[in-house]
């Protein structure tokens, strides 16, 4: 009986996740690079602003926001800011094809089992988190972003008001 209760408790504790909120430090576990070998982590970008974008190739809203993210990266990506894509619960081949199809130039990590998405507390894809140079969440968008949001809400927070 005790064993059954213990197993149920373990299951509930391991499944439960409230995720992170604005002001909290974002998880920075290492993940494999989507293309090429090696790993990467949000910790690699400490000292820079990072827009973390959780996406998957099968997700229609992700396709719609990808061009806006790429344009934003081209205009604002520099030593003080980058977009960081995290391909979550997706086939790696499909993810790489997605990157090529939309010509995405910002760095991409792979979260095949969704563990990092779980640590962030995502409820689906896409989701976007603006992380400040201290690694804390400054903005959180559960859903796709567009140029209007990026220019109006994200750019003003970047170094020099996003003027690169």
């Amino acid at each position, binding site marked *: 009986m005790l064993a059954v209760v213990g197993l149920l408790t373990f299951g509930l504790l391991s499944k439960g996740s409230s995720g992170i909120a604005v002001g909290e430090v974002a998880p920075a576990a290492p993940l494999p690079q989507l293309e090429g070998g090696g790993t990467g982590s949000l910790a690699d970008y400490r000292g820079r602003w990072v827009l973390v974008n959780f996406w998957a*190739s*099968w997700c229609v809203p992700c396709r719609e926001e990808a061009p806006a993210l790429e344009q934003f990266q081209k205009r604002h990506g520099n030593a003080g800011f980058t977009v960081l894509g995290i391909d979550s619960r997706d086939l790696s081949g499909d993810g790489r094809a997605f990157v090529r199809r939309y010509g995405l130039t910002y760095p991409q990590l792979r979260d*095949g*089992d*969704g563990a990092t998405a779980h640590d962030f507390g995502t409820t689906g894809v896409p989701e976007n988190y603006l992380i400040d140079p201290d690694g804390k969440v400054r903005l959180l968008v559960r859903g796709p972003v567009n140029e209007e949001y990026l220019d109006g809400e994200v750019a003003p927070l970047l170094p020099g008001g996003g003027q690169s």
Partner: protein
Amino acid sequence: MRPRPALAAWLGVAAALLAIGPLGARAATPQPQTSLSEISAEVMCPVCGTLLELAESPQALREKAFVSRLVAEGRSKDQIKDALVAEYGTEVLALPQGSGFDLSAYLVPIIAFVIAVIALAIGVLRWRRAGDPPGGDGPARPRGPNAADSERLDADLARYDL
């Protein structure tokens, strides 16, 4: 007119190639060792949280296409499951693995069954012993009427004069 020897040799080679051709093509085509339905009954759609065979989401359709491609390549069930684990992690497996913590999923029911059988056997033994006469080895036997009972029975029979 009889064909020249060289021409006859070339015709023979061409005929042999034509005969071997289909066999070679068959040998190059991998034979499926499993099926999509067999695999999809044992793996999960990680996004849906259900068995792949029950899922119809966009992610599930991609996963089914991935499995179908590997089946067509002649991969075995274990190889395909390994490929899925490499893509999605161990949570893609619907059946617990036979090692680590997952092993408890198989051991706990067996241990619980053994404990239940032992408890039942102990209970039956105690119940049988409780019915035994004190100090006796065998089971309790029905006892006949004692002398008082016999006298009362005789008196009753005499009273009713049957």
